[in-house]
């Protein structure tokens, strides 16, 4: 019965953008909807239902993951960072700055996922080649930019970060 499914909630505890949240979630609730609907972190977007577009990309325990492929219950105990948690106060993350500087965003819908993926890449590889950047974006779709300025933004961000020794 759907009624049982609805009310068989499971308690979870997650740290999102530095704040701890305790909640009871339905076992079938996807992490992306938990973030969006419960925590009102609507910067994480849903663009498909087959885990291909990457608009929902977040960082889970320091790794970029698609939050539509994970159940909220699986995130119990995790540390999560979303696009809203990337800037430090008024200071943007260099990748965010880069997307503005290089016109990496048009409609902005894929942008948070692109930025989260790019940050993950640059944390693992401070000096990626163009091929490595394009490969890293394999799981993120953009329909507006042809990726030209997204790739340019990530290159620019890498240069900035090497100069500044940025960490999160």
């Amino acid at each position, binding site marked *: 019965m759907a009624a049982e499914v*609805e009310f068989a909630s499971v308690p979870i505890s997650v740290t999102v953008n530095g704040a701890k949240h305790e909640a009871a979630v339905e076992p079938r609730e996807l992490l992306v909807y938990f973030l969006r609907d419960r925590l009102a972190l609507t910067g994480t977007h849903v663009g498909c239902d087959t885990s291909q577009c990457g608009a929902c990309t977040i960082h889970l325990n320091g790794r970029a993951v698609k939050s539509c492929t994970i159940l909220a219950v699986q995130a119990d105990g995790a540390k999560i960072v979303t696009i809203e948690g990337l800037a430090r106060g008024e200071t943007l993350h260099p990748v965010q700055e880069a997307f503005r*500087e290089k*016109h990496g965003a*048009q*409609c902005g819908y894929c942008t948070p996922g692109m930025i989260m993926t790019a940050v993950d890449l640059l944390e693992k590889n401070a000096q990626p080649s163009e091929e490595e950047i394009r490969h890293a974006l394999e799981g993120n779709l953009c329909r507006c*930019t042809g*990726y030209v300025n997204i790739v340019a933004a990530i290159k620019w961000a890498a240069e900035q970060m090497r100069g500044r020794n940025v960490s999160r």
Partner: protein
Amino acid sequence: MTTQHAPTGLIGASIRRVEDPVLITGRGRYVDDVQLPGMLHMALLRSPYPHAKIISIDTSVAKTMPGVEAVLTGADIDLNIPSPVMIPGQKIPPHPVLARGAVHAAGAPVAAVVARTRALAQDAANAIEVEYESLPAVVNAEKALEPGAPLAREELDSNICYTATKKGGDVEKAFAEADHIVRMHITSPRQVAMAIEPRGAVANPEPTGDLTVWLSVQSPHRVRADLSTALGFPEHRIRVIAPDVGGGFGSKGPLYREYALACHFALKLRKPVKWIATRSEDFVTVIQGRDQAMTSELALKRDGTMTGLKVRVVANLGAYLCSNTAGPPQRMMAMAPGCYQIRNVHVEVVAVFTNTVSTGPYRGAGRPESVLNIERLVDKAARELGIDRLEIRRKNFIRPEQFPYKTAVGVEYDSGDYERSLAEAIRLSKFDDMIRDRDQARARGELVGVGVSTFVEPSGGAGFESGTVRIERTGEITVLTGSSSHGQGHETMFAQIAAEKLRVSMDHVAIRHGDTLAIQQGVGTFGSRSAVMGGGALCLAIERVVDKARRFAAHLLEASHEDIVQTDGGFAVVGTPDKKVTWRQVAAAAYGRPLPGIEPGLQETVFYDPRREAWGFGAHVALVRIDRETGEPKIEKLVLVDDCGTMINPMIVEGQIHGGVAQGLGEAFREQMLYGADGEALTGSLIGYAVPHAENMPPLILGETLTPNPFHPLGVKGVGEAGTNGAPSAIANAVIDALAPLGIDHIDMPFTAPKLWNAIKKAEGE
């Protein structure tokens, strides 16, 4: 990158976007981000059949499920999506918001559920039982015209929605006297727009009885009018808000069934209702693009002079007409001759119903099909006559001194210099080197081809656009535009225009759009029209505001109106720059104690209609290599020279070209919505539809020529569709050039590896 906030030199500067700080921090507000207290969620049950009678629908279980507030089927509701008559005699079969008696395309909604959560609504929709009786289906438009073909809409006597023709000159004579006639049949693949944000609606009944609706749309005023008609609810009591919209590419132009349904439920239940499409739902319900079959004949003299053109377009409209479904095929009637002087032209468009998703405008909307048709024909003519491909183009180009040029189909092109554009593309592509390399590769048995496309692209059009400029009491400036941005950077680009023309810094200008309560009637953003139409309206409104402001300034400065000139931040007396007033002072006068002979207030609205489209143009060159063993194509060079007249923000223009090209490459190599023999949709999600990824994009070489539009206050032409219009046909010409040594002279897009491999193996076997 320039960061320019000084009050001059704004038009033409690559200014960073005003929109971005919100979007890059995740604070954008898209429809799905709208959360209202007590909001309910709608889910739909859709037909898996392309064509079937509905025998019965059992909603009894769904109605008793937890959280369910309402369930409707076509038996309970008789609302239809309106579609205008575009061609006299056009057939408009019903387009019900929920199927009534039969379904005519897979994905057609059969029942709707509203429940407390998204998941509960979906659970209940899944619990609805429908019994269908399958009917024969037809999905291919040309097959739908064959005798004995199944009727896609059984209430009609044929599958033809409309037939339209356009004629100019003496076509029969041209063909009778021709030295050579080139014949061709070509199709453009059915495309999915795939805006990354799926469609969505939030409908909120206001306590006053009014209705507020957030919609992911490109044309809020048009959609509001159609929504009013569909619901039978007064237009002026509906407020449509297009908040941040995550891409559209034409697909978010019309009113969709789900929007009307969400509003219907909201009004009936007196509660807010949200509906957000899943990607899979969008695949079978959002208007799709292209899917035209073109049969053409080009008459020529032996020396390559083009004398006559006949084109017959068979266009697939799908099963149901949205407000703009009938439009794209008609583009051929204005564009068939392209950038060539062909004085005898006959175009026939046959628009056909099939049991498929409705088609409609998708980036280019008839332009890429027209360009593909003429550019492939011209290449074929060159090959058959043994004339160089560039020579035959140059010989037939409309020449710069002939503008404005009225074509054989009665359309007037404003301006152009096609030879210069081609010359620039040849220079940037190092054309001769490319040909030499191709020939050497060919001698080694490799399949390498070079393709050229020279094209025109009309922009603007579709009636008027509106612009309002309001100087507020403190001298701050508000612009209200009927254009409706969904990624194009209007808040930046229009602010550049207003700030430069009003001689203030951009910080003093706010651009407002996408809200029918705030904005005067408008049309919206599609067809590369915003810079042309919205920009034109804005320029004229600015002129009027400045003119009126000079009268207030004259009063304040005790000078004559004629002696007042604009200065940075306000006005001065000519020749006496110290005698000046700021916009703030002028505004204070405009809204202060009434002055004799001047109506108070400082706001002007313009409904701009230049009564002509703006004809941009370009030349694209592609170098393609095809792996002889695998059929895998690789684009090794792509040069894009586009001319959109004056550029307001070159960075944004380039971004538009990049995005258009990506979609053009998708069309050329990867993307196609497919149907099976029985009409079942084979493509239903991103798993089966190959949108280009970052790794699929080749390096792009962009170039430009600049031919200002003499009929526009800023000299602009549209550019949003340049990449989709020009690049696919350059690639098609390159692919056929690569395969020509095998004797292959035609393959339809998309050029997938299996398709090319099969063609190569077949040719090698012969």
